[in-house]
């Protein structure tokens, strides 16, 4: 079992959380978005080895937040509420 930290609730069991995607992968806007840009948004993931920034949601309280963690050792560095995080 691993504990993740919800910015509102504090440490909770990892099973209470759901992955929401890479932070910073913003949906393209406008009618003239190229196919490559859509493909990048929909399918192309960075999948980094090491430090990564991701969007997660705590299913019980509904808090969306940015989690900074390490994909190698699974260590969680920070959890920041989405409205105060630089996720763009």
């Amino acid at each position, binding site marked *: 079992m691993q504990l993740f930290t919800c910015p509102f*609730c*504090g440490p909770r069991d990892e099973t209470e959380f759901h992955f929401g995607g890479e932070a910073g992968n913003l949906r393209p806007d406008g009618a003239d978005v190229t196919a490559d840009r859509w493909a990048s948004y929909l399918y192309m993931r960075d999948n980094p080895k090491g430090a990564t920034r991701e969007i997660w949601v705590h299913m*019980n*309280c509904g808090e969306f937040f940015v989690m900074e963690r390490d994909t190698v050792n699974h260590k969680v560095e920070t959890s920041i509420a989405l409205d105060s995080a630089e996720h763009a």
Partner: protein
Amino acid sequence: MRNLAEKWAVVPDWQTAAIEVPGLAIRSLAGLSQYLVSGDLDAWSKVSGAPAKGVGAFGKAEGERYAAQVARDRMLVVSAAPLGIEPGWHEEGFGVTVVSAGLQAFEAEGSETAELIARATTLDPSAGSASAALSFAGANAVVYRHGDKLRIHVDRGLATYLWTWMETAARNIAAAAKG
């Protein structure tokens, strides 16, 4: 055509349902008025005169009217009597949803309550958490203390599952206590 009804556990008679083993008694609570208040909880506090913050996980609520925090901007208000507030959106900045029929409430008491908690969740009941919403036996529930008892609110559709889970847990707790 197959009768799929037999696959489902029969819903207990909540008026009489009870789980009793040495050190643990669980029953269903009837007649509670329950409201989800969402949005600007400070505005709710000004209008209702109630605190803007509810108790968190395993926090201690008291009295016949209290609130349990569900999320940063949502709380479950519980009252023994109906509140005199209109459901729906209030222009002060909050919404009120009546969920009395949507949530089933259970109450557990006895010296083995801590053992029930230990089997239901990994959350440390002494650590505290801002939200009373947590996974209890795998179901999303609102869990807090009321007096010296434990109260659990769960979606009514999951109430039968949670009841059968608690029956099994209670049997196992009793067996473990016997050694």
